[in-house]
């Protein structure tokens, strides 16, 4: 296991679309372990995506269980995650391990239906809301080469329909 270097903007790898995982082998397991260690080493990180460490594969880790009073599914390794349904909109504050020293306001879906494979390739489905759903949407964006900077809205901006 290792703590990996986190790429920061303007590294061009952060704007690339990551490829689906096809091999559920020991190197995937090692990547997941390293990602988790790297996430936990960062200041207050509750999610990380493989492109943030320069690996262009569709793997993210999310764990919001350390935040008190928030509905969550614990520590999640999400391989080839796909958000299938979005419902509701909510503004919230986000930061990013790849964009140090900036907090911005982003509109996200309040509820999502997520399908993802686990580390062994099994397919799982999740209903998520609020903070956890926000974390997943932020990480899935990384897999598509999008940063939260691409979705900034004014703190005083009215909610408007999701555009993506």
């Amino acid at each position, binding site marked *: 296991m290792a703590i990996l270097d986190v790429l920061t903007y303007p590294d061009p790898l952060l704007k690339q679309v990551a490829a689906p995982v096809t091999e559920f082998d020991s190197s995937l397991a090692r990547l997941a372990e390293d990602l988790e260690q790297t996430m936990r080493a960062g200041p*207050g*990180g*509750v999610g990380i995506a493989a492109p943030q460490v320069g690996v262009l594969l569709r793997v993210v880790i999310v764990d919001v269980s350390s935040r008190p009073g928030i509905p969550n599914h614990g520590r999640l390794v999400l391989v080839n995650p796909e958000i299938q349904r979005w419902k509701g909109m909510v503004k*919230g504050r*986000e*930061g990013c*391990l790849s964009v140090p020293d900036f*907090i911005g306001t982003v509109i996200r879906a309040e509820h999502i239906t997520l399908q993802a494979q686990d580390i062994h390739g099994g397919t799982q489905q999740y209903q998520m809301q609020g*903070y956890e759903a926000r*974390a997943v949407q932020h990480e899935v964006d990384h897999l598509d080469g999008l940063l939260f900077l691409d979705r900034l809205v004014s703190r005083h901006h009215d909610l408007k329909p999701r555009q993506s």
Partner: protein
Amino acid sequence: MAHWQMLTLVGKDQPGIVAAVSAVLYKNNANLGEAAMQRLGANFTIMMMVDYAGSAEDLLSIVTPVAARFGLKEHVDVIEGRLHAHLQADVSISLYGADRAGIVASATERLAQAGLHILALHTDVAGTEEKPVFVMEISGHAAQGVEALREAVDDLDDLEIHIDPLQTMIG
């Protein structure tokens, strides 16, 4: 090493001021740091951190012609500020009520005593001349927690006050 100065411009609002001021700063090797511009009343107001190696008088002489062109008053202070000195906001407060004198003073004094460090504040007067509605939005750091802030303003019966923790997702 950066030489930060705070440039303030105030005057009648019109389009094009930010572009013209930014251009003249750029041409004179004065670099922009953090800045906040707001239209208040019909006035243009901006405060900008400018990194400029010359003196405050030199910076003023750069800005004066463009300020004069737009009818703005200019002011420069050498500051000790720097970049990357952000404080994390962890509470959001909104407050509204029928406009009355002292509304900001009474609320912010109590909130300050209960540990609030205000990081950003916007107030506005909505409604009509006859029936004004005062609206205030604050984000800040609650050194003694959110509950202490709620208790501090609990007896301000003629105001509607919402105090909520601000969560930030880092990923």
